[in-house]
Every structure is written in structure tokens, then in C-alpha cells.
């Protein structure tokens, strides 16, 4: 028996079932978290902080839908403008010209280094104080062609758009710079050697590949921008947070209305995610 002992397990090995390693720690932590969240939600419903019928009532309230739409418009326009600003700034930074590169670095430092909220308030309040009137005049003409108080031009919408676009442009500049630098010099040399001009190298070789690389980061920034439109509530732009605040300050259903706003922000985020995924699929594989 003792002689045959060692051989037996080897022969039986093929027939034995495989037992996966159990990671008990993860399951225990997960269970505790789920119980904790359930207790909070249950507590909220029991103490009537959260009334689901009120949420249903306000979810498609015209003012709130309009607020969500405004957030979408503002966030999307800001993404477009900041992409253009970011591309220009990134190209300046990589141009090799010390003045252009320095200007770009200073821009990124200033606009990335100060809170977005301060920048929004600055565009809305400080600029009209600094420049009370906007005047457009042509040389050799006696009077101004166009003159108007700055406050008429700088609406809450424009101030918010300028603030978000310029602040976001600084982040976009760094994202695009990273994307452009990720393309190896070998491909640039090969394109140049074929006879492409530097502009052609950029548009046909660098940009398509850099574009693919920066899509996830841009998706991230789009989502952040959509949520950052809530900052515009402070300068009186009727986006979602502003609308919701106005409603709950009269009916005091704070939690429900904030939940409604959160649901809309989640819907916008889902939209941005769908667009990002679509773009990632559209670019050819590498």
C-alpha cells in the first residue's frame, strides 16, 4: 500500500474536477457595501425625504427639459470651440518657435490653473466693468460704425460659453499635444521622405492617428463640460441647476428636484458615452 501510494494521485489527476480559486474578500466587501447603500435608500424612502411621484412629476417639466437642452447646447458648443483652441494651442506649443510656444504654455498655465467658476464670473462681471462699451470704428470715418454697452453683448450665455471654452481649451491643448507626440518620428520621416509637405504629414499621417488616441480623453472632457455647465447657474444662465433651484426654493422638494437634475445629467453623460464609443469604432484599427 505504502509503495503504491505516491503513484495513485498522478493517475487520478486527469479525472479530478478543477476548483477555481475563491476570492472571499471581494464578496464580503461587496455584500457590506450593498447592504449599506440599501439601508440609506430605504431610510430615505421611509422618512419621506424622497417621494418618487414628485420625481416623476418634474422629470419632464418643460422648464427642466429646456434646462437640460441648454446644458447640452452649451456643453457641446464649448467642446467644439475648446477643441479648436486646444488644437491651435498644441500646434503653437510644438511649433519650435519660442514666442508661440511660450504663449501657449502661459495660456495653459493660467486657464488650467484657476477655477472655472472664477473664470465664468470674470467674463460676466469683470469684463463689462473693465470695458464699459464696445466700439467698432473704421479709419477715415468720422463716427464709430457700431457702439453698444458691453453688458448687452456679454449675455450670461456668451460669458458662460467663453468661460467654459477657454478653460477647457487649456486641457484640450495638453490632450492634443500628447496625442500628436504619440506618433513616432519614423512615420513622420517616411512621410517627409515621400515628398509630403509638413502640412500634409500632419493632416494625412499624424492627425488621423492622434485623433484615434485622444477620443477617450475627449469623451471624458465632454462629460466634464456637460456637468460643468451647472457653473453657469451662478451667472444667471437658465441651465438645469438654475431651473431646479428656482423650483425647489418655492416647493421645498430639494432632494427630489436634485435627483431629477442628476437623472438628466446621467442621460447627457450616456449620450456622450455613446458618441465616444461610436467614434472609437469609426477610426480604423492600428
Amino acid at each position, binding site marked *: 500500500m505504502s509503495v503504491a501510494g505516491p503513484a495513485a494521485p498522478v493517475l487520478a489527476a486527469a479525472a479530478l474536477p478543477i476548483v477555481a480559486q475563491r476570492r472571499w474578500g471581494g464578496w464580503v466587501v461587496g455584500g457590506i457595501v450593498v447592504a449599506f447603500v440599501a439601508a440609506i435608500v430605504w431610510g430615505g424612502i421611509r422618512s419621506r425625504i424622497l417621494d418618487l411621484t414628485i420625481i416623476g412629476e418634474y422629470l419632464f417639466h418643460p422648464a427642466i427639459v429646456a434646462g437640460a437642452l441648454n446644458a447640452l447646447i452649451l456643453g457641446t458648443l464649448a467642446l467644439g470651440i475648446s477643441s479648436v483652441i486646444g488644437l491651435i494651442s498644441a500646434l503653437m506649443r510644438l511649433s519650435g518657435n519660442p514666442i508661440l510656444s511660450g504663449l501657449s504654455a502661459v495660456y495653459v498655465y493660467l486657464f488650467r490653473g484657476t477655477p472655472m467658476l472664477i473664470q465664468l464670473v470674470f467674463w460676466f462681471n469683470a469684463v463689462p466693468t473693465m470695458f464699459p462699451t464696445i466700439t467698432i470704428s473704421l479709419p477715415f470715418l468720422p463716427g464709430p460704425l457700431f457702439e453698444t454697452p458691453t453688458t448687452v453683448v456679454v449675455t450670461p450665455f456668451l460669458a458662460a460659453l467663453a468661460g467654459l471654452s477657454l478653460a477647457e481649451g487649456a486641457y484640450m491643448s495638453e490632450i492634443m499635444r500628447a496625442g500628436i507626440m504619440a506618433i*513616432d518620428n*519614423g*512615420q513622420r*520621416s*517616411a*512621410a*517627409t*521622405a*515621400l*515628398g*509630403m*509637405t*509638413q502640412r*500634409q504629414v500632419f493632416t*494625412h*499621417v499624424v492627425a*488621423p*492617428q492622434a485623433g*484615434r488616441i485622444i477620443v477617450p480623453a475627449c469623451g471624458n472632457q465632454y462629460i466634464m463640460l456637460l456637468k460643468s455647465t451647472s457653473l453657469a447657474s451662478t451667472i444667471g444662465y437658465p441651465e438645469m441647476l438654475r431651473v431646479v433651484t428656482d423650483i425647489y426654493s418655492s416647493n421645498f422638494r430639494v432632494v427630489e428636484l436634485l435627483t431629477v437634475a442628476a437623472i438628466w445629467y446621467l442621460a447627457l453623460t450616456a449620450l456622450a458615452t455613446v458618441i465616444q464609443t461610436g467614434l472609437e469604432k469609426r*477610426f*480604423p*484599427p*492600428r
Partner: protein
Amino acid sequence: MTDNLPAVSLHGVGKSWGPVVAFENVSFDVPRGQVVALLGPSGAGKSTLLRCINRLEGISAGRVYAYGELIGYRETETALHELADAQVSLQRRQIGMVFQHFNLFRHMTALENVMSGPRIVLGLPKAEARIRAEALLAKVGLTARKDAYPAQLSGGQQQRVAIARALAMEPRVLLLDEPTSALDPELVQEVVATIRALAEDGQTMMIATHDMAIARDVADRVIFMEGGAVVEDSAPAAFFTSPRSDRARQFLARLLKDGQAAPPQSPAQQDARS
């Protein structure tokens, strides 16, 4: 008229980065149709010399001509004026280049890579560029793989696509910088065979290489560089059997010791020829 001008002509060309000298005072002519092998130890300046010919690098001294045209400058009575990017890129059209690491455009298929020069640089219609590219892919034996992306191709296949991409511009000179150095030994043959076929077609080529089979069997002429200078310039047979300089002798002795080249020819190299 340009027929009897040399394909490439170097007049006292030098290149340095501050105190780092890649090469100095290099002068030689490459006649049309000749295949030159540039040999020399690592750091001799071979790659830099090739990159100076199509002005991927600016030169520090001397003049580079291709078919009599001064590359990179416009000459007046008083000075050499650096040409703008648009003008240099016009000059580069006639000088093809193949790189050690292939450098294919990774977002384009093999076919699109070969079409890129005619399409983007020459502005040929898509159909015409496609016909040209398909013919070249057939020539390098890759018709079946034309829709593959570089990441889906072996090193040897990528290098053949890169050669086809350079040829699509119908260059009057082809510069190859260690075309087989990044390849596994069993893939070297297919690329060497492609280069040999080009040589037989009369393509003017300058090949920087550590592959003695290319130097001996494909090239018409060996230029041996060391320490940034041309040390020896001779026919391949003469270079391998009776090198004139001590440095060339040492270089060949080192190669022999490493088993890279063994004159007389080994059977494996004779296989590569067929």
C-alpha cells in the same frame, strides 16, 4: 541632358550637432544605375549620410546634388539660401527612402500605404494610384496581403510594402538604411531578393547595411566609412578579398569572427540568390 549627370553627387559634405561630428568632408559621385553599399561599424555616420541626401537632416558643410540639382538650397552669387519646406518636398519626390524599422503608416492598409505617395504627394486620381500600387505589391509578392494593416504583417512583409511605397513615387534614387537589420534571419532573404530584383531593373540605390550578402552579391560598389570619413571606396570583390586599409581589414576580421560573413560564399547565401 540629366542623363549623364550623376544620380547623387556629394561635394565636401559634413554634418555635426555641436561638438558631435557624424561625418566630415565626404565627396563622391554615384552614377545612374549604380548600387552602392555603405559599410562601416556602428556610429560611422552611414544613416546620417543617407538622411542628409534627401534632407531629412540639414547639412553643416558642403553640397549635395541629385541629378545636378542642388538639394536644400538655392545658390546665388553671394550665398546659399535655404529652401522652404514646399520646395524641398518637391526635391524629395525623386529620392525614395526605405528605413530600418519600415515606418509604415499604421492607420493605412498595405495598399493604402503604397498609394499614399501618388495620392497625397502627386495628387493622382484614386483609380490610377490604385493600379500603380497594385502592380508594385504584385512585384514584391504581396498581392494577397494588400488589405492587411502593418500590425498584421510580418517584418519581412512590412519591409516589402515599405519598398513598394517608396517605388510608387518612381524615385530616380533609392536610399535604403539597413533594410534587413530589424528582420529575423529567415525573413532577410525575401527582402534581399526584392532588392536584388530592383538592382537588376537598373534602379539606382545606396544601401547602408551590415548584411555582407547585400554588399557582395547585390552592390556594384562598396563605400566603407569609419569615424565619419570614407576610408575605402572599391568594387565589392576587391573590398572583400583584398581590403587596402587596416581599418577595413579589422572590420572584416571582426565580422568573420562573429560568423556574419564568410568568404568564400556559404551554401545558404547561394540559396538566397536563387
